[in-house]
């Protein structure tokens, strides 16, 4: 995975609450056996009509948001199905950070593993960022993971919290499996204990 860099980019406003993973990537696109290429189908049913034409007033179809790298979204973003196709599609489109008052658990975890930083902010901050995002393409927002800040286009800075381990992995582009494999001896020890104490498992 690539190392996560400080990002200054266009933020698209999506104030809708409960944006679920079925909306982010409808199930017809889950039939792939690959991770790549899902970006064109991101938000497919909201973005295109049945004939495949773009729906003009959907935010990511508007000229000023076509190159958005940040989403500012309503509460409970990413709820529903566990499909990792959702962050795959977002990442493939070019989204690198999502800001909301809350995220569904599985989506939150999946995002980190795909180079997307989900940022939880209180409602009043999200309101400010949403307003900033509504200004369009000239209003660039900055996300600094190292210092854990989001800065609006007019220089207002907000701190955010992030799990230290997840931050470390994202900043350094570390692969979880590789890290865990270094602990193989702990797993061996655990399995030996398990075999003695709970052999049925």
């Amino acid at each position, binding site marked *: 995975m690539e190392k996560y860099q400080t990002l200054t980019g266009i933020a698209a406003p999506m*104030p*809708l*609450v*409960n944006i*679920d993973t*079925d*909306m982010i990537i*409808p*199930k*017809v696109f*889950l*039939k*792939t*056996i*690959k*991770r790549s290429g899902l970006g064109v189908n991101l938000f497919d*049913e909201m973005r295109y009509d*049945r004939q495949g034409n773009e729906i003009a007033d959907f935010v990511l179809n508007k000229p000023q948001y076509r190159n958005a790298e940040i989403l500012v979204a*309503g*509460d*409970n973003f990413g*709820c*529903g*199905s*566990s*499909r*990792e196709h959702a*962050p795959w599609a977002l990442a493939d489109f070019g989204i690198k950070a999502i800001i909301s008052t*809350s*995220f*569904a*658990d*599985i989506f939150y*975890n*999946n995002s980190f*593993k*795909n180079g997307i930083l989900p940022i939880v902010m209180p409602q009043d901050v999200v309101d400010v960022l949403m307003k900033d995002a509504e200004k369009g393409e000239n209003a660039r927002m900055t996300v600094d993971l190292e210092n854990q800040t989001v800065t609006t286009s007019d220089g207002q800075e907000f701190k955010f919290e992030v*799990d*230290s*381990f997840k931050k470390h992995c994202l900043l350094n582009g570390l692969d*979880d*499996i590789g*890290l*865990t*494999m270094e*602990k*193989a001896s*702990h*797993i061996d020890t*655990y*399995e030996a204990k*398990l075999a003695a104490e*709970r*052999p*049925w*498992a």
Partner: protein
Amino acid sequence: MTAPKTIYDKIWDAHVVSEDADGTCLLYIDRHLVHEVTSPQAFEGLRMAGRKVRAPEKTIAVPDHNVPTTLDRASGVIDNEESRIQVEALDKNAKDFGIHYYPVSDVRQGIVHIVGPEQGWTLPGMTVVCGDSHTATHGAFGALAHGIGTSEVEHVLATQTLIQKKSKNMKVEITGKLRPGVTAKDITLSVIGHTGTGGGTGYVIEYCGEAIRDLSMEGRMTVCNMAIEGGARAGLIAPDEKTFEYCKGRPHAPKGAAWEAAVAYWKTLFTDEGAHFDKVVTIKGEDIAPVVTWGTSPEDVLPITATVPAPEDFKGGKVEAAKRALDYMGLTAGQKLTDIEIDTVFIGSCTNGRIEDLRAAAEILKGKKIKDGMRAMVVPGSGLVRAQAEEEGLADIFKDAGFEWRMAGCSMCLAMNPDQLAEGERCASTSNRNFEGRQGYKGRTHLVSPAMAAAAAITGRLTDVREMM
């Protein structure tokens, strides 16, 4: 003396392989369930890195999401090219990596969350994961069970562990008795109506109270299944005699002395007196009515006797969401829920595709016919549920009433196979998600219990099942 623990604390502690200074743990996984949609990229990752499955004997795979449920599927051909490729990929991955496999042709095949318990893979006190959010179902056994993403599927395949931080404890207590016509599905939907779809975020829920204890194992699975719709990482119920009874004799449950040892351990899995919960929700069993959803989020729940709400009834971002939902659902505020006409009924899914669910629906349908023009289907949760329902005569009741009697799979729960709603069609469904497009593009879903679904099939509109009892 150690501090009192919740059942979640106990299971967690028993599975910690190692812990970092910041509380990040490596958690051991006892059972890993795999299906065709969320696993191909994980197996591909293993191959690319030259890794093996660490514990193939703890890994079970079954195709369910994409498989056709038509009776002619025995021919083995899946018409949809991409679905076929996914199922074939699972066939191959299961073989190459040496994991337990229930192919489409096996009578034991079915929805992964129904097959796991049925075969005795899921047992109390275990950690169970699957690349599917409804893994919460297995919590009914007093197991810590939750969904994971595909990267985590790969992580578990390679290491049999997950990197996790502990969630907070939440208690949902349903006191007293349920009224007639009220089922496990009404409990779980009512809880979500109460807490909202984000109410459980960051928590593991323990469901308890008399009404929960009184439920069968099937009912408990229905309740835990939808913990995820309430945002929780997992939902669980302390095991008891009913749990042990259900597990006993299952193909992969322990036998003989091992069984005795297991039961003795399982009996220690309860929440200690005085253990701390970060959040507590209490609902009186007698206050729960048969419910339906009116909108496009599982939290849009109301008793069947209510009317469709207006967007102004809500606050904040929900006003806009409710407006959008009413528009999508083609409903007007103030309309009686029982006046909503439906054209499709779906009975099945990992929420309500077990034998008890089919019995409840058949009980209402016995000797009756579904409304003219209604499309109604029953999709049993597994081949074994299907066989049992045939033996009990339930299949004949469904068929005589005018239902299609299908083969096992996820089917119209998520409509990845050809079982889908057409644009504008309206379905009373026993599944778990009423999201936009979930059951087909522009299809409209009302979530209900199996008995309520059967009642709606007869009258052609959402119906209070109590009128038919």
